[in-house]
């Protein structure tokens, strides 16, 4: 259960048996052709996969340098890559005979995905969400309720994602015998990082075959994805890690990595344990976990998946940080040039790709994971515009 020194299972003894049970069930499931076919079929028939690989002609031209391709995870059901993993884990829960799922959520995207698969597969669902986030994301709270989920207000700590995750783990410790904890990113105790990668790697494998088809068997010259917990990135990188393809993970620099307001875990964090996993995280010198900041709710997490910490340490992936402002600018450029309103998370990846493309040749190709759509961010964008003017 390790990625170099990272990973592991730093959880109370009470749930250790459940992690073992989960690992066994997961390992069996992915060996089972029927399960895999079911998973692939649900991705296709329910979520609309494969998602296309769209060439961003006008954006690339106006930017100069390499061509940019967009892997369109924004076209998934519920609007982001999150559903891939939610479907996978829900099918596993059903296979394990669990009737209840719990999930944590920050802005509500994973909560909506979890509530969605719970409705689809007839499971009960509790979503833990910070009080502060419930206030800010009333629409998503309403959606989860429409889907039949119970949204549990978390009033501990800073009342945001980090605390919602703590609270979900607490609930899991209490209800572990009949409850499946559906974690939303490539974080948490082993085997969660492995499992989330497995269920998200469809992004990378589709991209590889689509790109090869367009470019006659070649591989992209660079692959870029944003990193919060890191599930879209690890899914995108999966098939390329062992190949000679430069990979770039893009963190949120918020107001700047030199300020106190960022979520650049790899750039500015240190080794530590969060939510059951040894990884890099943002903390004080004494080990108190600090509140990260990003305009994008999905990157606003003080930790990062342990495999990313490992890929960072081994330098297999280059991790860079992009500010709020750069992300907003990229979001607008993508909107105006391609008619695609991407999520603020994904805009970080787009922003870095634009920089990277300029340093590359015209006949080179960058693939960017467009992890989600930006409909959910329109309120934030409006507030920012009003504030900025």
């Amino acid at each position, binding site marked *: 259960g390790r990625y170099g020194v990272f990973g592991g299972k*730093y959880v109370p003894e*009470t749930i*250790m048996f459940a992690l073992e049970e989960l690992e066994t069930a997961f390992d069996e499931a992915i060996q089972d052709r029927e399960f895999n076919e079911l998973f692939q079929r649900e991705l296709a028939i329910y979520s609309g996969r494969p998602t296309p690989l769209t060439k961003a002609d006008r954006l690339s031209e106006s930017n100069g340098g390499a061509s940019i391709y967009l892997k369109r995870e924004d076209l998934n059901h519920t609007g982001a890559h999150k559903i891939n993993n939610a479907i996978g884990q829900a099918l596993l829960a059903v296979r394990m005979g669990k009737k209840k799922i719990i999930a944590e959520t920050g802005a509500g995207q994973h909560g909506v995905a979890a509530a969605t698969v719970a409705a689809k597969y007839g499971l009960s669902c509790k979503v833990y969400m910070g009080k502060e986030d419930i206030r800010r994301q009333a629409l998503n709270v309403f959606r989860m309720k429409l889907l039949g989920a119970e949204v549990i207000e978390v009033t501990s700590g800073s009342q945001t994602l980090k*605390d919602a995750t703590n609270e979900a*783990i607490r609930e899991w410790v209490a209800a572990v015998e009949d409850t499946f904890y559906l974690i939303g990113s490539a974080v948490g105790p082993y085997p969660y990082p492995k499992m989330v990668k497995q269920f998200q790697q469809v992004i990378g494998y589709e991209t590889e075959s689509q790109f090869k088809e367009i470019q006659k068997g070649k591989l992209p010259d660079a692959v870029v994805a944003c990193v919060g917990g890191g599930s879209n990135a690890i899914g995108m990188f999966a098939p390329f890690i062992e190949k000679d393809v430069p990979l770039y993970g893009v963190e949120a620099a918020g107001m700047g990595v030199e300020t106190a307001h960022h979520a650049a875990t790899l750039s500015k964090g240190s080794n530590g*344990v969060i939510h059951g996993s040894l990884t890099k995280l943002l903390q004080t010198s*004494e*080990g108190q976990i600090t509140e990260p900041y990003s305009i994008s709710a999905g990157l606003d997490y003080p930790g990062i998946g342990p495999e990313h910490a490992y890929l960072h340490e081994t330098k297999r992936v280059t991790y860079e940080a992009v500010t709020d402002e750069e992300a907003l600018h990229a979001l607008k450029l993508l909107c105006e040039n391609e008619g695609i309103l991407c999520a603020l998370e994904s805009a970080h990846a787009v922003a870095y790709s634009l920089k990277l493309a300029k340093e590359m040749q015209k006949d080179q190709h960058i693939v960017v994971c467009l992890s989600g759509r930006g409909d959910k961010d329109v309120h934030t964008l409006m507030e920012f515009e009003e504030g900025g003017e």
Partner: protein
Amino acid sequence: MNKRWEVFQHSSDYRFTPYIMAGDPCEEATIELSLALEQCGAHALELGVPYSDPLADGPVIQRAGMRGLAQNMNLEKTVKLVSKLRERGLKIPVIIFTYYNLLLQLGENRFLKLAEDSGVDGVLVPDLPYEESGYLQKMCSEHNLALISLVSPTTREEKLVRLSSEAEGFLYCISSLGVTGIRSEFRAGLDDFLKAAKQNCRVPVLVGFGLSTREQIQQFDGSSDGFIVGSAIVKKIEELESDLLTNREEAIKTFKSYIESLLPVYSR
């Protein structure tokens, strides 16, 4: 095994191990509360360290942690606090209850050296299960510290055998699933679990999580060698917060009579 653990081990009492949070509501209060607990008959003391993300704790101890954080209490200061407790005459074993991340940041080796020097007797890391504790286990032995093991009703049998036979200081048996906190009912089959835990154990078997009344405590006498009370005591400290800061003598008196009301008559 040090002297303090020897006394603890050889006691014939139904052992009382209270938990309090360092720095709640201030450092001096923690010292006086610790001494008061010893006076009331505590056989050992668990000293919690304030942490931003205490995922094994319920709301009462979370709030205590927030108060401790507000006092800038941290792991290093908590360990040093034990020196002061020893200076003030505390004789019972003291176990530092800390989340693993705090240990990591201070540095495991630095912590262990400091703990040994400060008169700490044991360490309990609620988010460091057996599978991840190899290094710390080894280092604790070298520094004469007991790494307290927790076992839960969900612990698999072969693991329970191993943990209970290897346990040092005491074996912490979790009485119910979930986080720390006050409970009104306990899990069916708990006696069988405690029996199994005792079978291979060379050290006292203590039951904890959720105990808050004399009646609850008495119900485990016989099936266990002692008990841990955390949230109930921490809640009383919360009630006494302002007195503990401004009128401490009176507060400690009230606290002691609360503790007496809690303990089974025969354990005093």
